[in-house]
């Protein structure tokens, strides 16, 4: 009976278990930090277990959405609580629950404001999971924004020396992106016939009836107007990815955030932009996305080259000039890796998208682990200078570092290699 109740609403459970955990923590006394830590570990673990169950019962042979739940939320505005998952989101859900669970343990070292920290952390997890399961644009947007608040506090309160600046920069940047998305969301709603926020419905041809527009006598044809909508949406996602001109918040936020939050940022948050492109831009505005694909490929290339050069500069630039920082190196390498994801998407083939998703998952895992390692090392030696480690690093974190490092710099056998290769090969095919 109870088991059925859980299996019928798997996705809801995954999303709301962390929120239940928040409720539990709220009633725990402030002066028992270990109890709070274990409670949050328990709830994230439960969420992880449920997501394993989800993967287990996910039917791989079947295309389309599974585990769909749909409930009217605000009937007058046609908003639904509509969740479901397909192969794309299930990967991301698994990644999120796994990393969140691991990060709870990485957060053991947080001494100050433990209760607040774990409350915020669980809220963040719920927000991230919510984004990956939502199939209603409004719901998607709520979860998308819901993440901002805990992230702001997590960076701002428990971060490094420049945490305030990093936190507000992250907040302003992402809010800017999401309000642009809000415009698109509302236009989708009012141009669709019948008015709907349903992402699946909107993707059906003929639902979205965008009209010509006239702003102060300047005519904007349907084609151009849709392109404008696409660009607005793209900027919203590009800030999260981050795509080249919008990336400046990322190194700062990564460096200043506490280790587990850097892990979440690199592991999950960056994937959200790419996920949003795949979930919303590709199906709903396919022609515009196709029109933009060359630009997307170029932006991806810039990300790859620029990110790699910036990461490299960390080796040569002295610390006073903002270089020589291990965390920053990984942050820039994330920009580089997200470039491959963009590239994979830009080629518009099955292999390309596959490669992109694969890369998303792998990058999520490897970069996250690298950040964890940096955190471990930092806890012991209290610096992150790249030239500050000699042989003693090997005594600290022996082989695992090497494996992971090579995972990031694509080596055969290791997983990222496959993903990068996929993206590149399809690009060659396409050209």
């Amino acid at each position, binding site marked *: 009976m109870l088991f059925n109740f859980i299996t019928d609403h798997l996705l809801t459970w995954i999303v709301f278990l962390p929120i239940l955990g928040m409720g539990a923590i709220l009633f725990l006394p402030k002066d028992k930090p270990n109890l709070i830590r274990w409670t949050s570990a328990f709830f994230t673990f439960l969420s992880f277990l449920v997501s394993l169950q989800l993967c287990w019962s996910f039917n791989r042979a079947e295309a389309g959405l599974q585990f769909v739940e749909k409930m009217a939320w*605000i*009937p*007058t*505005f046609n908003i639904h609580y509509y969740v479901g998952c397909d192969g794309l989101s299930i990967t991301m859900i698994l990644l999120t629950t796994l990393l969140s669970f691991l990060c709870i343990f990485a957060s053991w070292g947080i001494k100050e*404001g433990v209760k*607040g920290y774990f409350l915020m952390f669980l809220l963040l997890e719920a927000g991230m999971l919510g984004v990956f399961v939502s199939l209603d644009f409004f719901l998607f*947007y*709520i979860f998308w*924004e*819901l993440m*901002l*608040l805990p992230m*702001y*506090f997590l960076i*701002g*309160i428990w971060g490094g020396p420049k*945490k*305030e600046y990093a*936190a*507000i920069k992250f*907040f*302003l940047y992402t*809010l*800017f992106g999401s*309000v*642009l998305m*809000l*415009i698109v969301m*509302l*236009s989708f*709603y*009012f141009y669709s016939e019948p008015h709907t926020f349903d992402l699946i419905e909107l993707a059906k041809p003929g639902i979205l009836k965008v009209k010509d*527009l006239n*702003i*102060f006598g300047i005519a904007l044809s349907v084609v151009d107007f849709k392109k404008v909508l696409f660009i607005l949406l793209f900027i919203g996602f590009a800030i999260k990815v981050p795509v080249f001109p919008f990336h400046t918040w990322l190194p700062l936020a990564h460096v200043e955030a506490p280790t587990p939050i850097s892990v979440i940022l690199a592991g999950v948050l960056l994937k959200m932009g790419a996920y949003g492109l795949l979930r919303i831009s590709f199906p709903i505005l396919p022609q515009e996305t196709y029109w933009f694909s060359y630009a997307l490929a170029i932006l991806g290339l810039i990300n790859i080259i620029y990110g790699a050069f910036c990461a490299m500069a960390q080796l040569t630039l002295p610390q006073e000039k903002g270089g020589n920082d291990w965390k920053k190196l990984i942050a820039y390498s994330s920009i580089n890796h997200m470039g491959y994801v963009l590239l994979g998407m830009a080629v518009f083939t099955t292999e390309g998208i596959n490669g992109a998703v694969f890369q998303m998952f792998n990058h999520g895992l490897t970069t996250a682990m690298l950040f964890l390692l940096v955190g471990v090392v930092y806890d012991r030696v209290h610096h992150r200078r790249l030239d500050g480690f000699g042989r003693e690093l090997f005594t600290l974190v022996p082989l695992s570092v090497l494996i992971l490092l090579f995972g990031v710099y694509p080596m055969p056998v290791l997983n990222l290699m496959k993903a990068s290769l996929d993206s590149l090969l399809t690009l060659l095919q396409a050209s």
Partner: protein
Amino acid sequence: MESLSLNLALYSPEIILSITLGFVLIVHMISKSNLFTFLTALVGLVSAGGASIAIQSFAPQFFFAGQLSHDPFSLFFKLFFITATFFTFLFSYRSYEIDEERGAEFYLMTLAVTVGMCTLVSSINLLSLYLSLELVSIVSYALAGFRKEHPASNEAAIKYLLYGAFASGTMLWGLSLLYGFTGSLNIYSINATLSTNSLNPLALYSVVLMVLFGFGFKISSVPFHMWAPDVYHGAPTPTAAFFTVAPKAAGFAIFIRFFYTVFGNNSGLPDQWITLPHVDWAFLMSILSAITMTLGNLCALWQKNAKRMLAYSSIAHAGYMLMGFIVLSKEGLTSILFYLVVYFFMNFGAFFVVGLLANKTKDEEISSFKGLGWTSPWVAFSMAVFLFSLTGIPPFAGFIGKVYLFSALVQKEIYWLLVVAILNTVISLYYYTYIVREMFLERPTSDKPLLISPLHTFTLILLVIPTFVLGLSWEPLFKYISNSLQFIVTP
């Protein structure tokens, strides 16, 4: 005398409020206790609220010889004002700015403003409109200067008075011109004359501008906003909270009723309006709306005083609400009313926390918020909820309010204003988080938590919960507001 008793019944909320006003004085004289006076005022407000709910069963009609209108629109606002006054009283009790022995004075004046506002929203005659508007204004001047010993409060009162006198004088001139043109005081007859006889557009335009002066002053829209920061800053905090919410809502209510009835006509489609030919006040207001929100937000960026910052933010919010005004559709008006309700909770809440803190520190500097999140987490949490809601971040009510305002614009495809509003949202995040930063990101200087009375804790909870709940489930309120918009009754 069937009709007299009916008229009186329809006017019962105001009558009850006036009786309460008298009782407050008597009770205070006899008991000399602030508590009894306070309770009397609350009981009066609750019964006035009850009366305005009870008279909802009467069919919409004009009463008092066509001076006032009984319709869902005015009832909605009456309830709104009574609730706002109720919270103001809860706020003012034991506030450091309201002396114990002068409590009765405070209640008396605030109730008088409430009576004025309640009459104002149901006025359909220029005479009653102007009289009730003046009742609101003149008592407000006194309220702004309530802290006699405080120079800023005195300055606020005199600024408010001078500016207000100028504004209402100009408006009166506009109204008298309107009477001269049409020969009628009733807004429906004025509209009938204006839409059939073609007047000189220039004359009509100047009338619109003059009337706009008066209303714009009340809702503190640019360029009639100059008084607002000083008055909100100088007035006692409960009064400032009251001013930013109730008279502003009254201004919006009468603004909507007057402009949509007198200078607008039904476009033929249901729930759509058009402006009178040659007088495109909707476009004019859309420009004012863009300037109002931008100016309010940009000025708020530099403030170091929480009250002053919130004052500028309330100007910005007037700009947001004007967006619903200019689309000339029922959706737009619904979104204004919805936003007003949401705005009441979040803005009043923010002022309330500022006031609670000021009771301890005796000033409202943002720096005194330092470390509040560590010493009194719940108060700081509520403040953060109010501020994020004011920014318009989900899952708080402010977001939903903004979504409705924005969607009214999208529906009419007024994208340029939408872009301005959206950029403003981002700007406003910066200064709202300024307080949040002080509260949570800074460490406290002392460990002493903020002591607040149970009454104030209760009030805070009453304000926080709607800010949350309306962000997640707003359907009932939205439906109620949709039904409240039948303000055009056919006589």
